[in-house]
């Protein structure tokens, strides 16, 4: 470790690797945001809080029921999926087709509600979330790579691949894409568009739950722990082009690396991470609103 500190290049590479790992989490949450954005043109401000709530559910399953992580992980994803579908049916469906400002306010209401509920059930004291991965880092070519980082990145990549396969190769996935792009035509060919939206919410919630469970061992757990992560995911989604799933993933990894570099090398870097995300969002929207991959939105007048 002493040797490491003396080698700035190795140190930098190490920062980049841990940045990519954290980026996997931002990418996952950004993908969840993009899924909902594509389906209903609204950014789900409650995405982070839903992930926070799912992570607390996992925490209770682990500490309260003493279940092993291998059981808790899929179980939480299922619960999160069901929760997402339920939320869409109960809270979002009544507002389908309403103006964007109304939908934004509804997701903010969901934000407040979820946050308050979590505080009510689990309190506001920081909690340790057990990591499924060993703490011992791997040494490789003079680098110390945390198994936590590797496991996190691998998990996120697996989840993202599953989502890709689901949308690309299954009938339901195709129906969901069709419903998002051409709701009217989809209705004509017999796709239940409204239920596709509910499935989308379930899926986004499940992806968010994975992101939450992966990042919680690093950040600790309290009702506010996902707020900055949500902001980083927004930055990732905007950077990638808010309509592009691939863009969200690339944006997430890029934001992860940039934040690691900003946090380590700028003076007061840790405090500048959140303001930096603001700068990324505003800069992308000003310079290249379409993001890295997205198409420029044509505004019809």
């Amino acid at each position, binding site marked *: 470790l002493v040797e490491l500190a003396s080698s700035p290049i190795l140190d930098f590479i190490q920062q980049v690797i841990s940045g990519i790992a954290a980026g996997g989490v931002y990418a996952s949450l950004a993908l969840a945001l993009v899924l909902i*954005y594509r389906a209903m*043109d*609204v*950014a789900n*401000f409650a995405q982070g809080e839903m992930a926070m709530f799912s992570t607390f559910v996992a925490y209770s399953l682990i500490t309260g029921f003493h279940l092993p992580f291998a059981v808790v992980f899929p179980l939480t994803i299922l619960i999160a999926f069901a929760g997402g579908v339920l939320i869409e049916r109960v*809270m979002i469906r*009544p*507002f389908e*087709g*309403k*103006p*964007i*400002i*109304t939908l*934004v*306010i*509804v997701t*903010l*209401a*969901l*934000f*407040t*509600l*979820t*946050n*308050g*509920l979590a*505080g*009510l059930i689990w309190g506001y004291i920081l909690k340790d979330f057990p990591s499924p991965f060993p703490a011992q880092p791997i040494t490789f070519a003079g680098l110390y790579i945390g198994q936590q980082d590797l496991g996190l990145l691998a998990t996120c990549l697996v989840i993202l691949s599953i989502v890709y396969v689901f949308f690309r190769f299954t009938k339901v996935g195709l129906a969901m894409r069709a419903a998002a792009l051409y709701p009217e035509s989809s209705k004509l060919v017999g796709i239940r568009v409204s239920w596709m939206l509910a499935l989308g919410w379930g899926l986004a919630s499940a992806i968010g739950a994975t992101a939450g469970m992966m990042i919680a061992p690093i950040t600790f757990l309290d009702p506010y722990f996902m*707020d*900055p992560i949500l*902001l980083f995911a*927004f*930055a990732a989604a*905007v950077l990638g082009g808010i309509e592009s799933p691939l863009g969200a993933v690339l944006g997430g990894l890029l934001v992860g690396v940039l934040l690691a570099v900003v946090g380590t090398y700028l*003076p*007061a870097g840790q*405090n*500048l*991470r*959140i*303001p930096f*995300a*603001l700068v990324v*969002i*505003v800069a992308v*929207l*000003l310079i290249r*609103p379409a993001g890295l991959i997205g198409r420029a939105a044509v505004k019809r*007048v």
Partner: protein
Amino acid sequence: MSTRFLGFSIPTVIAAGIGLVVLIGIPLVTDTFTTFEFAAVGIFAIALMGLNLLTGYSGQISLGNGAFMAIGGYTTALMTHHLGISYWLTIPIAALVAGLFGFLFGFPALRLSGIYLALATFALALAVPPIIDIDKLEFFFLGHSGVSLHPAHPPGLLASSFSDDQWLYYVIWAIAGIMFVIAWNIVRSSTGRAFMAVRDSETAATASGISLSYYKTLAFGISAAFSGVAGSLLAIHVAYVNPDVFSLQLSLALLVGVVIGGLGFEFGPVLGALFVVWLPYLSERMSSIHIGSFQLPSKPDVFFGILLVIIIFFAPSGTMGVIMRGISWYRVRRAAARGEAVSIAPPTVMEEEAVGGEPTEITN
């Protein structure tokens, strides 16, 4: 036409008179705590007036007005701490500084509409506290431990007739009154009409020769200036600021308040402020109610969330919308009984959108 007083109808004048008597009476008949909380209502009313001008009248959503309150609050706290300037002098400066920041933020916001604007302002709300918290700037911002201010006292002559709380209460509500008159006049000026034109249809507004960029940034600047005054008064009222005061939760509470009060109504902010200040207190009180082993939640956030959904669903124009609808229903009933025709105010933003109102078509 019924008799009018200074251009207002008699029932309006009576309602305003009762309101004024209640406002003046509160600190005289209630305890220190209640006076303190009602002074906070005045502060939040100012902040909500600013947000109402931006969101309710010019149609731009902001989740970041808490950040402008932070700028106002810190302007007052730092000027009194570092320079020893009197509180009251710092209030207009806080308005100017926050307004300037708002105007500058309005420029990038110009190119952003709807969801992107919500995103950028959300980021702004989260970004300001960690900047104040930077270790290396502690000599200036005083870091996380915050800035303490001397409690405000009534000036010499009045010291015997007012307690500190009563004095602060009256000053805050006097300023809230001034800000209300300013907001009222903005809404009725050509600027206000331009805001509403931009809100209702950007295309139609441009076609009528309204500069979108000018009025959108202006709305941001004015809204931020109102928030700055509110932030400044909050610092004086609590006699303390730290970065945690101006959290994302504050910005969200502002949005909740302005929607619950009623977007696009002059009196909406006052009702919204009552909710924002008293709902947490009421929910604390309700948590002492036990139904069997069930205890009602003490955190206001749950109530805020549920209330917000209910309001948006059943009464998208907020409490004021419900009241106004009640009044016009009464007027229609009365007029029908007399066999007269009656003109009814057109629906407001949220109502119109809620029923799927089409944007105005322009035909040559």
